[in-house]
């Protein structure tokens, strides 16, 4: 299917304070934005001041996640569905100039007689595998399923037997137990030191780890809270929203959970609730979490209102980022440039990302279709684009 494309220059930096990015003079930043009505690519210059917009791609299709393969710097995978057709996936080998539908998107096993089978509603999460495994990808679906492709995303198969494991199926709960858009398997993480060491998370169903390439999985839920009155030993009650591994220290994980912000230092197995250091009036509820590419003590969250009926909007209509530079011992409010009032944003778990620049650039997209960025690690913010469809995911990549 051909993508509809147009290119123009938009969004010039307005900030007078942001220092130019110092890293990678010849490299530029790519920001991949997936929305409910298509996908966009934003190509930034080296200073991340001028942005060229490329899109929409797949206008009208729901793009749940679009990710660049860091192993070749040109292959994009886009997980797609529409509100009315079944799910599929598209692949580009030339950075989005042309797209081709993959041959066999993720699908569950066909049920036997008398057995109730599951159907993939959409692929929610895409993760390129280890650097030593070119062409290998992992995918998480809704309802929860874990899939792997060994041919660059062209053909997908169930990975590790998890999808039909009775114990894991029980942990996933029913389709009514998940998010409003369906329960999801997400946050698939590959240890950069070992392709057989993987993590993933399920909403609901907890965080899980394998050290033997998927033969065996171990839950990692010690220390995580669940909704008051429920049994924390029951995996089905655990709702990790977003889990991140620190590239600078693969033994450190951060997590934004339905019930707080956490850190885990391996080989430890118990999560520490670092969100308790957040201001009480803000709390530590949210969807996305992003980590610094070179400093494992630096991470960012985007708090949301998780009180009463869970509005899931910015608290009091005053959007802000909170950042820590000491591993969660303390948090700083970062809101310069963001609206001061009446901005009732929701930012989904995949919709915040960091780039590799110096200082690090941060990006997030709102469900109201605004794309925001910071060139100085969250100190000041500029709106890159507005009037996009509901933003589902934001990813970045450095291009040579």
């Amino acid at each position, binding site marked *: 299917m051909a993508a509809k494309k147009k290119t123009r220059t938009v969004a010039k930096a307005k900030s007078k304070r942001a220092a130019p990015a110092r890293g990678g003079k010849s490299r530029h930043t790519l920001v991949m934005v997936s929305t409910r009505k298509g996908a966009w690519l934003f190509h930034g210059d080296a200073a991340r001041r001028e942005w060229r917009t490329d899109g929409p791609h797949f206008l009208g299709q729901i793009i749940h996640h679009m990710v660049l393969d860091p192993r070749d710097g040109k292959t994009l995978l886009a997980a797609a569905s529409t509100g*009315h057709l*079944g*799910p*599929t996936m598209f692949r580009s080998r030339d950075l989005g100039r042309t797209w081709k*539908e993959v*041959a066999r998107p993720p699908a569950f096993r066909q049920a036997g007689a008398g057995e109730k*089978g599951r*159907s993939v509603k959409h692929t929610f999460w895409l993760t390129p595998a280890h650097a030593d495994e070119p062409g290998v990808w992992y995918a998480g679906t809704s309802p929860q399923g874990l899939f792997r492709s060994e041919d660059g995303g062209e053909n997908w198969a169930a990975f590790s037997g998890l999808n039909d494991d009775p114990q894991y199926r029980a942990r996933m709960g029913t389709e009514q137990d998940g998010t409003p858009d369906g329960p999801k398997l997400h946050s698939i993480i590959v240890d950069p030191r070992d392709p057989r060491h993987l993590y993933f998370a399920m909403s609901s169903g907890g965080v899980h780890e394998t050290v033997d390439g998927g033969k065996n999985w171990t839950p990692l839920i010690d220390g995580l809270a669940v909704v008051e009155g429920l049994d924390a030993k029951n995996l089905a009650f655990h709702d990790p929203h977003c889990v991140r591994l620190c590239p600078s220290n693969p033994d450190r994980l951060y997590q934004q959970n339905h019930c707080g912000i956490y850190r885990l230092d391996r080989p430890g197995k118990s999560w520490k609730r670092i969100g308790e250091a957040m201001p009480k009036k803000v709390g530590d509820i949210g969807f996305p979490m992003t980590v610094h590419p070179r400093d494992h003590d630096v991470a960012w969250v985007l708090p949301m209102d998780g009180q009463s009926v869970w509005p899931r909007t910015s608290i009091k209509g005053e959007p802000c980022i909170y950042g820590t530079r000491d591993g969660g011992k303390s948090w700083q409010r970062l809101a310069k440039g963001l609206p001061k009032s009446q901005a009732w944003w929701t930012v989904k778990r995949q919709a915040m990302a960091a780039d590799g620049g110096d200082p690090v650039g941060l990006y997030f997209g709102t469900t109201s279709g605004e794309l925001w960025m910071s060139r100085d690690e969250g100190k000041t913010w500029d709106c890159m684009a507005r009037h996009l469809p509901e933003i589902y995911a934001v990813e970045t990549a450095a291009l040579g």
Partner: protein
Amino acid sequence: MQVLIPTPLRSYTDQSFVEAQGGTLGALLRDLDRRYPGIRFRMVDEQEQIRRHIRIFVNGAQIFDIAHSLQPADEVCVVQALSGG
């Protein structure tokens, strides 16, 4: 036999009416997929169920089971049940 393709699926066929063969609706959809790879999974899920917003009519009557038998002269219409915004 002639099959009417709804607009959301014409990116696969490039035309509104296409030719396909099959003794059952399931076989017809497999033949369609052979001619237009990928189109079947967007209409029928891995449990062989017609997807929620897909309607298939044979000679004007809605069919819910892909095991439904077809005759060479049957008219098959695939319709997209659009809803929402």
